[in-house]
């Protein structure tokens, strides 16, 4: 029983990161219909900028984290504002944008690997304390992961519900053509979506680096764990992606009970396939507007 509770808790911690990844990527996908592979690159940029500011400049961790997230935001804006918008202007197909995005991820991952090497970089300065309740244990970092995820996802939902820009984003998600007709600036919406997503994915990157150290190839790990919650939760549903992030976390950590840890991904994959077979539109999904027929 104690083991089971411990595994559930472990699922919550990793699920928090998956939720951040899923919600951020799902927001971009739902609003821009771009299969944003370079999201993994944003992740790497945030992790390594935080590392440089912390270890290279010796700034306090909080400041480094803010710097890392700002770098991620800037990176997201560059990819969307320069590359994607250039491609969209020349009527690029979704395939063309996807391949360019893939190129960005590969380029960034390897540039980072060349500069910093492939060994894991750790972030120092986080006050890690172990908390024990009965037989189960966790750390202050784990709690930070949970609260950051909850806070950011709730803040994002509030932003989408309450602010004008948030409403514009939701309008674009539900029907881009109509949104444009009523005078919503689509380019601005796309840029703002990337800013919001970069804040979330940047936070996920810093938390992951704190927990296990940062490596350049975390970029494509991140992108995979960003896709899965979105598909499981249902495209277009932010709460769906968040809940699905936790489902993936639980499935993996409970799977470890019986299966060796290197097969974690296999467990997540089986959940994914099962959802695709049983509920093709995702657990909480509705079919997203796909253009006029």
């Amino acid at each position, binding site marked *: 029983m104690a083991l089971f509770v411990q595994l559930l808790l472990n699922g919550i911690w990793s699920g928090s990161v998956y939720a951040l990844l899923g919600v951020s990527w799902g927001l971009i*996908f739902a609003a821009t219909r771009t299969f944003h592979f370079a999201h993994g690159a944003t992740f790497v940029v945030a992790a390594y900028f935080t590392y440089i500011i912390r270890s290279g400049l010796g700034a306090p961790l909080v400041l480094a984290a803010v710097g890392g997230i700002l770098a991620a935001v800037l990176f997201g804006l560059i990819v969307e504002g320069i590359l994607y918008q250039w491609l969209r202007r020349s009527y690029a197909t979704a395939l063309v944008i996807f391949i360019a995005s893939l190129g960005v991820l590969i*380029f960034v991952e390897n540039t980072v690997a060349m500069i910093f090497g492939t060994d894991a970089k750790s972030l120092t300065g986080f006050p890690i304390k172990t908390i024990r309740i009965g037989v189960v244990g966790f750390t202050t970092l784990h709690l930070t992961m949970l609260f950051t995820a909850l806070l950011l996802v709730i803040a994002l939902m509030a932003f989408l519900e309450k602010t004008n820009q948030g409403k514009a984003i939701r309008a674009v998600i539900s029907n881009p053509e109509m949104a444009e007709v009523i005078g919503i600036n689509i380019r601005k919406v796309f840029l703002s979506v990337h800013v919001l997503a970069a804040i979330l994915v940047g936070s996920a990157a810093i938390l992951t680096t704190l927990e296990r150290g940062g490596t350049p190839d975390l970029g494509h790990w991140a992108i995979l764990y960003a896709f899965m919650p979105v598909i499981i939760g249902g495209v277009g549903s932010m709460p769906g992606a968040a809940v699905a992030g936790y489902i993936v976390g639980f499935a993996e950590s409970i799977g470890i009970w019986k299966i060796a840890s290197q097969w974690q991904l296999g467990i997540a994959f089986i959940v994914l396939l099962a959802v695709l077979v049983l509920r*093709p539109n995702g657990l909480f999904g509705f079919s997203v507007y796909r253009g006029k027929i």
Partner: protein
Amino acid sequence: MDYLIHIVIMICIYSILGVSFNLILGYTGLIAMCHAAFFGIGAYVAALVGIHYGLNFLLGIVAGMVVAGLIGLLVALPALRVRDEYLIVTTLALLMIIYTVMMNWMDVTRGAAGLTGIPRPRVLGLEISTPLEFLPLMVIFGILCLLISRRIVRSPFGRALKAIREDEIGAQALGKSIGSYKIRVFVIGGALAAIAGSLLAHYTTYISPFYFTLTDTIFIFAVVIVGGTANLWGPVVGAALLVTVTEALRFMALSPLIVGFTRQMAYGLILILFMVFRPQGLLGEFGRKPEEEREIGDEEEGETPAKERFLISEAREIFGKPAGQATGANGPLLRLERVSRSFGGIHAVEGCTFSLEEGKITGLIGPNGAGKTTLFNVITGIYPAESGSVHYEDLEITKTAAHQVPKMGIGRTFQNLRLFNRMTVLENVLVACPDQIGERIWGAFFRFGKVKEQEETNRKKAMGYLKFVGLEEKAGELAEDLSFAEQKLLSLARLLATESRLMLLDEPASGLDPVFMESLYPMIRELLRYGKTVCIVEHNMDVIRAIVDEVVFMDQGRVLAQGPPEEIMKSSQLTEIYFGS
């Protein structure tokens, strides 16, 4: 010398990978991240079969193809049923899982250490070991894969693949089962990639998981993209270029680690730059277009009065003897009963009941947003009705899948045409021909003569349809290069080629000039003489008065009236709704 031969061999292996991936990415437009996994599966299966059973290497290749194909099927089946983007996710996961299996299934794969001592292939009792001896083998397999690919893309099957890439809903309306095509081509592509893996295993006699990572998938992407997507020779050119450059990098005095990263960065940059500046790759899909010739053609077209476009005298030649107007003695051809369909709380169509008499032209009219197009979508199964029923003759087709409806004899056009833009005019029509033997893999490969014969008949028919609408001169041009009016005509020719009995025309006249329009209508009337039934969505009241036998008036998702046009026009209430006066 051996080193040069080695490079040629590697070019052969990557050509096979590129050619097979081109079927998936270039011709069908599917994005799959797992090509390196197929490559790896082929290599490991061939190696294991060779090491443990000592079977002939050809059996190992076949085994690798079967395993890769089956795994491909397992991943594609659930993903492609939903939407294309999901394939990216499932294939990326597959790639990483296959890698995990290679790394961790120690008993079989020996993990990171890899498999050593893979036996050399034996041909006619002779062992093949030096690069020079391997060369013919590699070239033979390279050519074989190229021939298979060529057969696929030049067969009716490949034509349908391209149509699906260009416009799924358009292809579906011609009776193509989208999912089935995508799954078949994905499995074939995977199985061909396994051949390259088997060859690599036998050639190097050593394989490890590190040969089959995301990096290698990216390399295969680059091979296809640099050479040119959907060009038969593109991947060969891409492989030759990239393999040579990669090998040349080895001679630079850099540490292997740095070289590895620079290569990767270069691939990333290549993908970005090609997408920005030359998305079609070096060769492009069609090679160079004959620009000048086309301009001359355009001028000639300007001199032909639009009125003489439709050669009704030709109709007899194309359709055979007029079958005579259908009488409708057996009751209505299509019957809708209380059909409803809503989208997120908006009732696009609500409780619609009406019927289409056989051998007549029925006009579906009503203000914008009345639900006319939605009704077409309901009938053709794109958005199946949520309640109510649709009957075609005595069959209920309410829940019939969208790609089955056309096979029953219901064809349609679209307001936004949904042509296959990057295919020629002739191909656009050919793809619509019903019951093509060459659309089945078995047919395309093993009933050569039959396919050829059918292609010839279809080609003649297709040219006939194009003549009928006045586009025969343009048969070889890309659909995207036609003027809007010509594209509308092409969509009609495509509909004719389906040989449908019931034709649903969605605003065939909108956006055309009046002279042109006037010439369109005799043609539609002419169709009735050949046993066709027509339903037409139209805004132009003059047109309705001129050619329609029966009018169905819709507003806000409901049918308000059905009757002869004069009667409907007289009703002041309806005109008020329509003109809002």
